[in-house]
């Protein structure tokens, strides 16, 4: 369970792709660290890019920070010049104790959230983030159990019922929570289809298996296929 969840919001400051205002509005209950990264090509020294673009990038970043900050929210920001944005995102997430990372995407008004639960290890952390989001937004949540389990297995249903109870006990509206039970064959395409009909996806971070190392991880595929923003809740880091 996470107290006061922190979200890392990576933004490519070399491109003009700020997170949408609707998304920012929904994410505001979380403590936010904005990571502005500026990709550096192999041909150029990072210091040289910094000399040229630091001020510009800082201004862009400040605009985004202002949007998150609103009144009194706690927003931190980091600017990184990097050849490897994935490495930078991971490192900054560790340094700033971020529990989750946003994979930015396009979305309009946000009303429906898809929550993909996989195994028990990470479940309370994912639910903790969902709780924070629901507590201060009017959201409908669909819970989804994303593990290969044969149809009719009680395990999925027990997971989903348990998760629903857990959220309701923390004062959330039972009516706003529904769940979907996939079968082993359809579970991934079902997840992608569901993602299309929701506005944001919350999922846990899992070790990619061999196939995923080739075709990309689930959050990446959701993002590539549907363009929806994905909040990836990271595993507990042993410090």
């Amino acid at each position, binding site marked *: 369970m996470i107290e006061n969840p922190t979200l890392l919001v990576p933004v490519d400051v070399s491109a003009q792709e700020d997170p949408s205002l609707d998304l920012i509005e929904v994410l505001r209950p979380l403590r936010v660290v904005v990571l502005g990264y500026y990709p550096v*090509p192999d*041909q150029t020294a*990072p210091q040289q890019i910094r000399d040229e673009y630091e001020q510009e990038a800082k201004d862009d970043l400040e605009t985004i920070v202002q949007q998150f900050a609103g009144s009194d929210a706690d927003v931190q920001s*980091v600017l990184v010049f990097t050849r490897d944005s994935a*490495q930078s995102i991971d490192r900054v997430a560790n340094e700033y104790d971020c529990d989750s990372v946003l994979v930015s995407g396009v979305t309009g008004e946000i009303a429906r959230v898809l929550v993909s639960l996989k195994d028990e290890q990470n479940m309370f952390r994912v639910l903790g983030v969902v709780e924070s989001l629901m507590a201060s937004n009017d959201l409908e949540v669909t819970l989804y159990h994303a593990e290969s389990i044969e149809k009719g297995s009680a395990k999925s249903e027990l997971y989903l019922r348990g998760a629903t109870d857990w959220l309701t006990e923390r004062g959330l509206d039972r009516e706003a929570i529904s769940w979907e039970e996939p079968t082993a064959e359809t579970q991934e395409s079902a997840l992608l289809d569901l993602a299309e009909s929701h506005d944001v996806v919350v999922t846990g971070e899992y070790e990619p298996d061999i196939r995923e190392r080739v075709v990309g991880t689930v959050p990446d595929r959701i993002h590539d296929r549907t363009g929806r923003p994905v909040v990836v809740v990271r595993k507990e880091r042993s410090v």
Partner: protein
Amino acid sequence: MGSETETQLERTLGLTEALMIGIGTMVGAGIFVLPGAAAALSGPASAIAFVLAGGIAMLTALSASELATAMPASGGPYHFINKGLGPLFGSIAGLGNWLGLAFATAFYAVGFGNYVDPLMASLELNLGIVAAVPLSGPQIGGLAAAAAFIVVSYLSTDGTGDLQNVIVIVLLVILGAFIVLGATQARPAELLPFFPQGSGPGSILPTTALVFVSYLGFAQVATVAGEIKAPGKNLPRAMVGGVLLVTLIYAASILILLGVVPLDQVAGEGTAIAIGAEAIFGGFGIGLIGVGLLTFGGLLATASSANASVLSASRINYAMGRDGLMDKRLSKIHDRFNTPYRSIALTGGLILLFIVAGQVNALAKAGSVLHLLVYGLLNVSLIVMRETEAMGYDPEFELPGYPVVPALGALLSFALIGFMDLQQILLAGTLVVAGIVWYFVYVRKRVEDTSALAQYRSPPAVEVEVAVDFDVGPDDIPAEDIPADDSTTAGHGGGAND
């Protein structure tokens, strides 16, 4: 929100990547271009020349490692000399380092052309170009190759860094096969007489001077010091390990080449190693494959050396612009490609000019003279840093054997210049004079000398702690890379002698 945004530069290179940069720049010329010329001079004893040159490079690699961990800003050897000895020497070193790289690149590119030429001829791809322009086949191949690297650098093609790693690994595998298979066939008797009949052991030092160009790559690692993870550990390992590995490969390859093929068949040949491959792999009935592999390797190696040098040259331009020794407009970054396009275009233009002008072998030697001068000064700079206890000089890696190692590095680097041909020394000397003139005409009125040497000569009158600005900014190093026991303040001196 008034929260201050922290700026960081991501360190993305591990030990392997750093090693690959060094090896990739070095392994090109020494093995694929020079064995023929070296063998013509010294015969089998040229292996000793390769080892000697590697030894001199090693001393400087140690010094460069220490300097680079103390001031990991872009610019490499030029930067260290400018900070240690001031803008006069900085001008000489910057110009020398830059043009030296351009010379070397022209040389690598024509070396590339040497390998392409027979391919083009055998495929009858001549197209009448050779008849139309007064250039040799290798020159045309070199021009095409150099132009390609320049365009790729200019446009910033994603993944060239990864490609470089793949190239180096493929190269090492090919050379490994050459050495291992060759070792089973080499006849020690072929290596006798070990020293050439005419000149005897006396030919070794001139040969050392000739082949020194094969080691120019190691300092390239220093130019990316700011991007290496855990530089205190990885930087010296990458530099020393790279020089060591490359020295072994060079010495072993030349011994095996001459142990298999009679000396007179390879002496003076531009593609000697491919001739050796034909004999070695031929012994296994796969001669053609061997030639193909080594030719392919030659292409890869010269290409990767040339490519790395184009990039390093632009970093020197940038660093000189940053320090005010050159017009900043030269290091402007392209709006779309984010590359230092003007600098790449200028360096590239010079390289193409040098290739067309011919005489790239002479240029390569002049480039070696310039680099030896720069390396000598680099060692001197390290001694100055330590002896003046320069403020803010606190290297994570301290070289062993101070002051013998840097003193020997400086002496041997300068001494090796004496074994170059007079013509090339004069050419390099002209460029040194040009650097001095440049200093008095352009640099002196613009730049204040804040080097360690200047601070030592006339310390600030008031006892204020003024740290020499070794770095470009205080936020150069992400917090995680500052060692936990780092209790140093700005006023802490060299701290190297304890």
